[in-house]
């Protein structure tokens, strides 16, 4: 069993929901990322999703777009994100880590080389926003060779037949995109999410994590009531950005990030199992 699948199983046994925070590797600077990852875990994160900076992040709203721009300006690239995972693993061998990003940096590195390096640094999964099931055969073969999970998106617009073909190629968990839009949009509808999750559960027993639009303890609690986990991206990236823009010390960056994650943790833990 992969580390990601194991983590979801362990949480389910405890009647708890997975909290998956997202930050961009190298935002606001190269030195802050690994300490942030540890701080997020200490504050209650179960899985870390590390964004790979890309020049053209087509699915991101303004908050995460700017994070990609800051990260690129600080010099962070795919190989730096992999190096950060290696450094993180020096102190934390348990918390699953996945990279989230776009096809081109991975394609340019080469699928086989990426898989080898990812396995060597202790990465657990990959989520590429713009590689749908139709295009995934090449990268999946390499990820499976090294026992790594490939995390797929399912959207509100995904028809039933596609849901079946997606879950057949997925492992680890399914990432349900809670709304039609880019990251950080504000029109989350928990009841609509619940209906879609019920449909997806007819096709798979994989854990379902929900992202896009979850920004605080309350929205996490509402979505977490029917999901197996929640992903928090823009809200977290935003508090980090605001602190950095205000000239915060690294200590303060870690503190504001940890406070938000701890608050969302308490929202999730308030769900009666």
């Amino acid at each position: 069993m992969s580390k990601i699948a194991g983590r979801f199983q362990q949480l389910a046994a405890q009647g708890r929901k997975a909290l998956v925070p997202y930050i961009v590797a190298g935002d606001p600077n190269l030195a802050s990322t690994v300490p942030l990852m540890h701080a997020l875990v200490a504050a209650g994160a179960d899985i870390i999703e590390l964004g790979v900076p890309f020049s053209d992040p087509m699915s991101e709203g303004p908050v995460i777009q700017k994070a990609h721009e800051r990260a690129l300006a600080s010099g962070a690239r795919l190989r730096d994100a992999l190096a950060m995972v290696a450094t993180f693993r020096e102190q934390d061998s348990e918390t699953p880590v996945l990279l989230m990003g776009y096809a081109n940096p991975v394609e340019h590195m080469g699928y086989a080389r990426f898989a080898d390096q990812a396995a060597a640094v202790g990465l657990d999964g990959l989520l590429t926003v713009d590689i749908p099931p139709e295009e995934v055969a090449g990268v999946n073969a390499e990820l499976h060779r090294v026992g790594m999970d490939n995390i797929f998106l399912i959207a509100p617009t995904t028809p039933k037949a596609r849901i079946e073909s997606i879950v057949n190629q997925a492992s680890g968990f399914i990432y349900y995109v809670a709304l039609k839009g880019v990251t950080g949009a504000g029109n989350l509808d928990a009841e609509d999410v619940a209906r879609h999750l019920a449909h997806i559960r007819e096709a798979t027993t994989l854990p379902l994590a929900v992202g896009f639009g979850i920004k605080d303890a309350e929205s996490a609690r509402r979505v977490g009531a029917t999901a197996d986990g929640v992903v928090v991206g823009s809200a977290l990236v935003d508090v980090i950005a605001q602190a950095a823009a205000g000239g915060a010390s690294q200590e303060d960056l870690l503190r504001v990030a940890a406070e938000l994650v701890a608050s969302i943790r308490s929202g999730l833990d308030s769900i009666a199992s």
Partner: protein
Amino acid sequence: MTTDLSTKIFASVPDAEGRFGVYGGKFVAETLMSALSELEALYRKLADDPEFQRELDEDLAHYVGRPSPLYEARRWSDRVGGARILLKREDLNHTGAHKVNNTVGQALLAKHMGKRRVIAETGAGQHGVATATIAARLGLECHVFMGEEDVRRQALNVYRMKLLGATVVPVTSGSRTLKDAMNEAMRDWVTNVDDTFYIIGTVAGPHPYPMLVRDFQCVIGREARAQSLAQTGRLPDALVACVGGGSNAIGLFHPFLEDESVAMYGVEAGGHGVASGEHAAPLTAGTPGVLHGNRTYLMQDEDGQIMHTHSVSAGLDYPGVGPEHSWLKDVGRVNYVTADDAEALAAFHDLTRTEGIMPALESAHALAYAGRLAATMTPEQTIIVNLSGRGDKDIHTVADIDGMDF
């Protein structure tokens, strides 16, 4: 790689997955996948529907003003020497460029899908104007995304779009040019996919766009082929067209692909020269990768980040290229070459002075290369150059370079 023309491979692409060899495909977020499937299914149905064809042909004849002339540029040919040069006058279309051939077609698709809103990306503004134009005629709400840098460079077209009732959205992310406008249009589409049709302006993007934009632009080559036979009694020896995303080039080339005797040259923007690194020539100097929904040649760095491009012409200032061009390069059917900023500007002035035709700076790249090519050929030979657009929109750019101040 050699090309076996007997197998008619050119009619076989794209395949069912939208691939041209290893290029093309559908690399987009899951939210858009069903909208792309829906568009493809509708397009495949309508493409064989005589009523849809009739509607399209009528628009092309009476609204766009087709067929566009094939004009022999005798004075300019004499000046450059060698082969006879004929210009396919897409600059004479309604709105002043080839872009409208495609927007008329896609707007008909939007109408058939019952969408009330269209969006578009634009670089030089020609595709934005062509989209705003057809939206005005059909009563559709229209949003055009345009890089902030291009909004500045192409103020005239921005105002034209506003006059036509469109909302122009300046894009301030990334390099603030065409590629960022396309990112922003994708973000809008993913948010408003239920009621919005995305009219992509070139033969790039996810399948089925490279196929359907090509099909709508092929009217250029079909006309040019018939006109060449009628006016010169033979097929041309060479075709020359500029390549940014590559829609005017594919439109001219595609109907000739199986004519073995016809050589083809796609002219990319050489900017300050390919050696300078400041250019927009992915087929000449790039490597394959994935951007904006398809696999194709890209200008990218050693980490797979998309590079900034440079061209004097906003319409060619794009780091990718349509996937069919990538395939045509690899199979060796089309030669991809470059003309730099200075050569394009010289051709702009030359054609204006000798023929009284002011070309768009994009088209001036094709003219610049055609001039070089003609000089190596004989007076019995002919070249067709796609004069893809008119140059009025570029007057400010040219005046700036010439040190004019209005």
